[in-house]
């Protein structure tokens, strides 16, 4: 299989995630777009692991670490979203401007 296939697939998913982060204003949708971007990175890691036939399996191991970090990120992120919804009755990120000077 050409190495370019998974790389272009990952680039497409990453760009879709970038579009989602910029175009959505609901915080839960933004979190879903971030998950898409993290998955695109994982596809790259696994593809290069297969291409290089790495004896230490660095690509696959780091893909697993990225999955663990993504789980932590989405847990904390949703807790913050719930807290904001409880206090402000909205989860639109352009209406949450507590830190704006």
């Amino acid at each position, binding site marked *: 299989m050409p190495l370019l296939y998974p790389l272009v697939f990952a680039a497409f*998913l*990453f760009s879709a995630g970038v579009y989602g982060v910029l175009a959505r204003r609901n915080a*839960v949708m933004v979190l879903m777009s971030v998950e898409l971007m993290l998955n695109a990175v994982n596809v790259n890691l696994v593809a290069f692991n297969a*291409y290089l036939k790495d004896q230490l399996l660095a690509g696959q191991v780091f893909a697993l670490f990225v*999955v663990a970090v993504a*789980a*932590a990120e989405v847990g*904390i992120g*949703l807790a913050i979203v719930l807290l904001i919804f409880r206090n402000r009755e909205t989860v639109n990120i352009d209406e949450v401007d507590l830190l704006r000077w």
Partner: protein
Amino acid sequence: MTGQEVAFLVLAVAGGFAGVLVVTSRNVVHAALWLVVALASIAGVYLLLAAPFVAFVQVIIYVGAIVVLILFGIMLTRVPVGRRVFDNTLRARIGALVVGGGMFAMLTWFMADAWGGKRIASQAATTTDALGIAIFKNYVLPFEAVSVLLLAALIGAIVLARRD
């Protein structure tokens, strides 16, 4: 074109289509369910790239846990349905499309330039015991760091989300 490449192209088209619908769907629950399709086709791509353990972790953690967490987040925040409520203005969406499309074009161009003719040789799938040895021998320190990070995230989420 080998059977592996055909299977990859089918999975990539399904995953890319689902990925686009995740970021454009007007209904937040539909977007979460399209995310399931995208993540499942990525798991299939891992299988084709000789990484079955990563594929099963993808199905268990992402499809099984993270999407369920996101659906709970949707339920608990009463997200209304409709484009106006959860998308930015048309001007901002056009800007986002320019940034996303430009990033895709740029990344594809760079990668075609750098790895254009290279091929992934067909190989035996990575066994789970080889991966386990790699994690617990060569990468044991980052593994421990990740476990502390998960504990910290768990405690942080409980502290943030509980009512006093």
